[in-house]
């Protein structure tokens, strides 16, 4: 059965969690329940802007009644459009087009103990993960860094709902404390760790975990945005089947160029995290910017994620 990939929801309520973070509660238009989702899931919102439709992904959670979906959006400075739209152009009662829930950041089901490391708005995927674990009586703890108590979204909720399991670190004000990757040294065998926050924090925690000997299998992370682009330059692609040549300009992705030329490459996260838009490479050099492929796959030079990675010169693609 073919199912539409998007649907419309109504903004039931908007709560200001901190000076820069708003929580949006979404409900079905006909009052029925919205689809269920697993811990770590997200939705993609399609935001109509004068310059075209923006696609932005947000972790979903539910701290209110069953059948609703909630997201939390931090107003970015500067905003690339998504957070500005939610904060300044969305009101209670408005209708928004969103995707069905997807999960690229699931919980491990082999872990003996789960440890979440969040910075800032990176707390959002852990709200649904902790809810799932708590329901199943599984063992977990949270380490959550924010600038100050005032800027720490959901702090009271977390303390009340998961007493003793949440540790907070504030970088400003009295009793400053930094969230340190050295905490990773203390976890017992069988622990899985999850990181969500700015790219720099994720990189730091990922490399610390690896340096302590963690297997990649036990390390999970979610990037909100693609890795900061290095100096991107245009490149050319040649399609193996048709011999067609296409230019990928510096400011566009190969995925966009392929789709515009009528090649229906599937995609999902658009930040190099899920692998949906992978294409096979027959010849040519690749600059990998994704966080999905293994080192071995990258070295093979036989595959790339078209949403984020780039070629050098001309690349022959198996399409």
């Amino acid at each position: 059965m073919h199912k539409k990939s998007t649907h419309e929801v109504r903004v039931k309520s908007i709560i200001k969690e901190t000076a820069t973070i708003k929580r949006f509660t979404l409900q079905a238009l006909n009052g029925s329940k919205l689809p269920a989702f697993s811990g770590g899931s997200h939705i993609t919102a399609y935001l109509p802007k004068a310059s075209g439709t923006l696609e932005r992904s947000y972790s979903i959670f539910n701290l209110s009644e069953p059948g609703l979906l909630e997201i939390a959006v931090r107003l970015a400075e500067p905003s690339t459009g998504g957070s500005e739209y939610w904060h300044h152009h969305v009101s209670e009662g408005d209708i928004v087009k969103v995707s069905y829930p997807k999960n690229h950041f699931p919980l491990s089901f082999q872990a003996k103990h789960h440890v979440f490391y969040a910075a800032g708005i990176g707390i959002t995927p852990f709200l649904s993960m902790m809810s799932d674990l708590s329901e199943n009586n599984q063992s977990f703890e949270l380490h959550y860094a924010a600038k100050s108590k005032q800027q720490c979204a959901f702090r009271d909720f977390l303390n009340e709902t998961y007493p003793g399991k949440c540790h907070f670190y504030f970088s400003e004000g009295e009793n400053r404390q930094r969230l340190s990757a050295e905490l990773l040294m203390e976890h017992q065998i069988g622990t899985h760790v999850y990181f969500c926050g700015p790219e720099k924090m994720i990189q730091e925690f990922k490399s610390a975990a690896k340096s302590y000997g963690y297997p990649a299998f036990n390390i999970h992370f979610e990037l909100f945005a693609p890795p900061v682009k290095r100096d991107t330059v245009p490149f050319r692609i040649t399609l193996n089947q048709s011999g067609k040549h296409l230019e990928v300009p510096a400011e566009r992705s190969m995925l966009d160029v392929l789709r515009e030329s009528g090649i229906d490459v599937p995609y999902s996260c658009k930040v190099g995290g899920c692998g949906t838009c992978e294409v096979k490479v027959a010849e040519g050099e690749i600059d990998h910017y994704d966080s999905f492929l293994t080192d071995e796959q990258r070295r093979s030079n036989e595959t790339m994620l078209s949403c984020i990675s780039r070629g050098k010169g001309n690349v022959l693609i198996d399409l």
Partner: protein
Amino acid sequence: MFSYAKGKRKLLFCTDSEGNQNLHILVQQALNENVPFEFHILQEESDEEIVNQWFVKQKMGTYLYISGTFDFVKRIQGVAMKAGFSQHDMQSQAIGPVSKKLVCCTCHGKNEVSNQSYIVCGHCGQELEMSDHYSSRLDAFLGYITIK
């Protein structure tokens, strides 16, 4: 054969009296690289609770080698998995005859095999080829239909 796990903060060597020879090269490498390790030679019927106590106090980044007879390896592996070790945190090597289970892809019956590559399913008579497709839930390998 064992391979040396690089970049680990600590190594554990667990062996019976049969298996300790196999670990010497690894121990030497750990010494050369200054990686802390613990080496325990256990009796065949060693107390599982003592082994469990040893395993549960380990931190992430610890890597375990198990060497010994098939039954010993199997038993210690079980304790390690319960304590939190996964297949990504350990290597094991059995000395002497091994005994594996093979699940028939036709009738789902379980067969005991040692080192054979082909067997005839004792339940339905299908000729089966041993695969390396292992199910930890069933503790068995999948037996494929032999294509001739």
